[in-house]
């Protein structure tokens, strides 16, 4: 019971704190706090609800990609670049129609995973062979990914309006979505990828030897090395794994509604960075990441409405940023309090035990 309270309190406190801080910012800038709160807490209409579900799936996949790195002690800031490369490669492959019909979906997903994994491996290999920090190399690789994909699409893509995009996904390979709410867009068919990734993430970390090795290395690389875990290999493999999942981030949107790739009109950038925040918010735990993704998607989904109350929609970015910051702080406070409580409990028990022993001796 106490444990559940300890793990639930920080995110709740963080969200409340973030909303309060946002209200202060709005009040200072002369906006209406009441309008902000009533809009943020209003029940979203059906269309926004569907958008929230769809966006949650993308953010969750991205969150899991980042979390794999975090559990290993790697800061894979390259999720952004990896999902761009994965999306670009997948869209070229999917649009080419090399594989017919529904089978194209599976094949394209494999391409997305492989491309993301290969791109992430660059940072992994550089780290173990040359000692380059994965953060530095991944940031550079993010820029390269965006520019390179833009170039490739312009060179080998087709014209779409004023910009270029890959060939459209053949209609026979476009899965129908789940028409849950009438009048709204469909929930994308491949939002199920998020569920699969969540299950896979839990299984891998909690139930496999590889997962154990990964967590051990993340906790202490030297201890892992001493107990016979090949740390270098683990770095490369877990980077690739993180990148492989990153490759899937945009796939629900690709198959669900966009059907082609081209920056910026036919793509959604920024999901990789958002995924890092979601993983931080969710403490790398499955329920946490899912809730974090839903929270971010919910805030973004409601933000459109804010503008009609005369509030800049960017305040939602402030809320999201403060939530992440606050949750990190809150968990640290709880951790200290918890360990102090444990220490006190132990010292109380210790104080009680010798007394009993002394009594025994005296008799």
């Amino acid at each position, binding site marked *: 019971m106490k444990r559940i309270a300890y793990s639930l309190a920080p995110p709740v406190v963080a969200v409340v704190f973030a909303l309060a801080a946002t209200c202060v910012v709005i009040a200072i800038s002369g906006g209406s706090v009441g309008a902000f709160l009533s809009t943020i807490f209003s029940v979203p209409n059906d269309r926004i609800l569907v958008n929230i579900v769809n966006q949650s799936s993308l953010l969750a996949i991205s969150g899991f990609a980042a979390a794999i790195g975090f559990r290993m002690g790697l800061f894979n800031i390259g999720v952004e670049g990896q999902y761009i490369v994965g999306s670009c490669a997948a869209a070229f492959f999917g649009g080419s129609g090399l594989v017919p019909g529904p089978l194209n979906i599976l094949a394209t997903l494999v391409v997305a995973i492989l491309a993301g994994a290969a791109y992430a491996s660059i940072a992994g290999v550089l780290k173990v062979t040359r000692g380059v920090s994965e953060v530095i190399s991944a940031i550079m690789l993010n820029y390269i990914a965006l520019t390179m994909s833009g170039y490739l699409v312009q060179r080998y893509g087709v014209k779409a309006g004023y910009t270029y995009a890959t060939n459209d996904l053949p209609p026979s390979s*476009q899965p129908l979505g789940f028409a849950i709410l009438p009048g709204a867009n469909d929930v994308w068919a491949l939002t199920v990828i998020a569920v699969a990734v969540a299950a896979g993430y839990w299984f891998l970390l909690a139930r496999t030897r590889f997962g154990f090795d990964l967590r051990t290395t993340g906790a202490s690389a030297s201890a892992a090395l001493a107990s016979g875990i090949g740390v270098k290999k683990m770095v490369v493999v877990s980077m690739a794994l993180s990148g492989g999942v990153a490759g899937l981030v945009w796939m629900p949107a690709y198959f669900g509604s966009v059907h082609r790739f081209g920056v910026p009109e036919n793509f959604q*950038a920024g999901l990789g960075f958002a995924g890092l925040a979601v993983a931080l918010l969710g403490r790398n735990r499955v329920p946490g990441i899912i809730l974090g993704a839903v929270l971010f998607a919910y805030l973004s989904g409601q933000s459109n409405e804010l*503008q*009609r109350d005369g509030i800049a929609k960017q305040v939602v970015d402030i809320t999201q940023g403060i939530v992440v910051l606050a949750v990190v702080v809150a968990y640290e406070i709880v951790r200290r309090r918890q360990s102090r409580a444990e220490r006190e409990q132990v010292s109380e028990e210790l104080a009680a035990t010798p007394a009993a022993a002394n009594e025994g001796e005296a008799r």
Partner: protein
Amino acid sequence: MRRLAATTVALATCGLVLSACGTAADDDKAADKVECKPTKIEGDPKVALAYDVGGRGDQSFNDSAYAGLEKAKGEFKVESTEGEANQDEDEAAREERLRGFAEDGYNTIVGVGFAYSESVNKVAPDYPNVAFAVVDGFDPDKTVNCNVAYLTFAENEGSYLVGAAAALTSKTGKIGFVGGVNNALIQKFEAGYEAGAKAADPDVEVTSTYIEQSDPKGFGDPAGGKSAAEGLYSDGADVVFHAAGGSGAGVFDAAVEAKKWAIGVDSDQFKTASAKQRTRILTSMLKRVDVATYDFIKSVVDGKPSSSYTTFALKDDGVGYSTSGNFLSKDTIAKINEYKDSIISGDTKVPEKP
């Protein structure tokens, strides 16, 4: 056990994927000739402007649209609201913005920027009594939307004139072009600029560079604009024309430091630039987004909302050039106006692609 689980997952995925793959809509209907009746608007016009990333305050494109709205508000009884895109938002968010406006009773909705083309195309059929417009827009499919106006500009014609101005002003015989993002729209500026320059001086050397290949950041990256322009100036160019939105501020800074000329874009940038920059803005290529926005609102007020493509060209004063710094010599202006007349009369055809 593990293998079994894997097989089950694989099978389940296959089943799901297969059952999900029924049919998908076929968008490619034949382009029928559709006779459009004017969109019926109920009540007074309520105007909503949906900006792209950047929004108001860019001293260029978006502000120009707002100026058009302000002018309309001064003349007619018009209510208005505005909305702005977030960085990194997806298509559904854009659609939701437009639908939100329509459901709040806004019957005149203007998407500012071609990024709204797809979302307007998707939303417009659901609101037949709302007049939509997309600045710089295009119809992405072959189904005609009778309640959508695409407001496009002959940027190549305006750029032709400033290209001539650049070539006639240049002393080194080298001039430059900085584009924000390398797409077909910005290439129209480049093509016109180069053609105009070559017409004025066949020996002039025109070097073009783009800040970004596809990342829209290229329109909001003054540092990128500055380094692009610095490169051109140090290679000997003494006039640089930018079509890079907010990145243009960096181009002007580079011109100040190199003590060479820059040419502004979209609005008369001499009027909004800093005092230092002003001394270096030779002229600006005007793209009258304000005129287009105003005209569209007026057409709604008049009960005949415009629809389909409307191109604002030199002959409509939809594009042009500015002389507010008085930096262009009399001879140059006379020459430019000759070209202008020649384009309006149709004697000179300006290319759209470089």
